[in-house]
């Protein structure tokens, strides 16, 4: 990435303007032409550097419940259980971590009850014995922004 790429990437992570000509707005801020900003963004998307440009909603305000869940899974079953976990559209992020609780995922559903139903079904299908249900009590930071 060159300096212009980085400048644009840092800016649009913070804020993508809501206006008729968003790329023009960004360009004015950074001293670049609208076309230059647009072409760079398309290039960075093609390269896979940008995953998406979009809005992040407050899940609670949309009446959704969410939780972090951890499972203790034997190494030989990780692949199988990961497949089960990943099959639920309500599960958006899933990671293998280095701990006795090794599968960690986030679940977003209409209610806590719905989340618990999903956990129960995963436990049954995957023959899971130990599960941690860890909903957030308070958010101190949520900002997946990386200075490049």
């Amino acid at each position, binding site marked *: 990435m060159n300096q212009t790429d980085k400048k644009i990437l840092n800016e649009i992570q913070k804020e993508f303007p809501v206006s008729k000509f968003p790329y023009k707005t960004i360009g004015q801020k950074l001293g670049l032409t609208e076309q230059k900003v647009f072409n760079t963004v398309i290039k960075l998307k093609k390269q896979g550097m940008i995953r998406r440009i979009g809005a992040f909603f407050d899940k609670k305000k949309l009446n959704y419940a969410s939780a972090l869940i951890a499972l203790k899974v034997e190494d030989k079953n990780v692949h199988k259980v990961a497949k089960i976990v990943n099959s639920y559209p309500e599960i958006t992020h899933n990671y*293998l971590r280095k701990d006795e609780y090794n599968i960690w995922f986030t679940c977003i559903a209409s209610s806590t009850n719905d989340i618990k139903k999903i956990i129960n079904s995963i436990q049954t299908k995957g023959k899971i014995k130990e599960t941690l249900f860890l909903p957030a009590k308070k958010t101190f930071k949520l900002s997946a922004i990386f200075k490049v």
Partner: protein
Amino acid sequence: MKLTKLDKKIINALSSDLPESINPYKILAQKFKVPEDYLIKKILLWKKTNLIRRIGATIRHNKAGFLFNVMFVCKIPDANVSKIGMEIAKFPQITHCYERLTNKNWQYNLYAMVHGKTKKECKKNVDEIVKKLKIHDYKLLYTLRELKKTSIEYF
């Protein structure tokens, strides 16, 4: 908050990827058969009322060189958890920080995602936090593999 059918469609569209156009909102407005001004006003209102926390780009952080991340979990007495949580949030290498319910087998109540370009840098970032905030009871859960990462479709 009362949402119309159209609102829900707009929310879904905004939760995925904006159209790759020099006028992305115009394209969306055409798709939903509403004037562009109407759509822009609505999105700005949602931002103002914090229904939308942020509109911006999400990067693939590993592609940008942030190859390592670790979930930092610690046990903080209830009386201090807000103070420590707010302090941890100030570190730029942290993207997420939450207080969570505990479990009888798991007494960690404060969580943070710590990032770094190398494993060493990641560890250094953690060391800085625990030293500055005098956190003694903590654990690091390194990410071995990303098994799934998608954005949610709400409606």
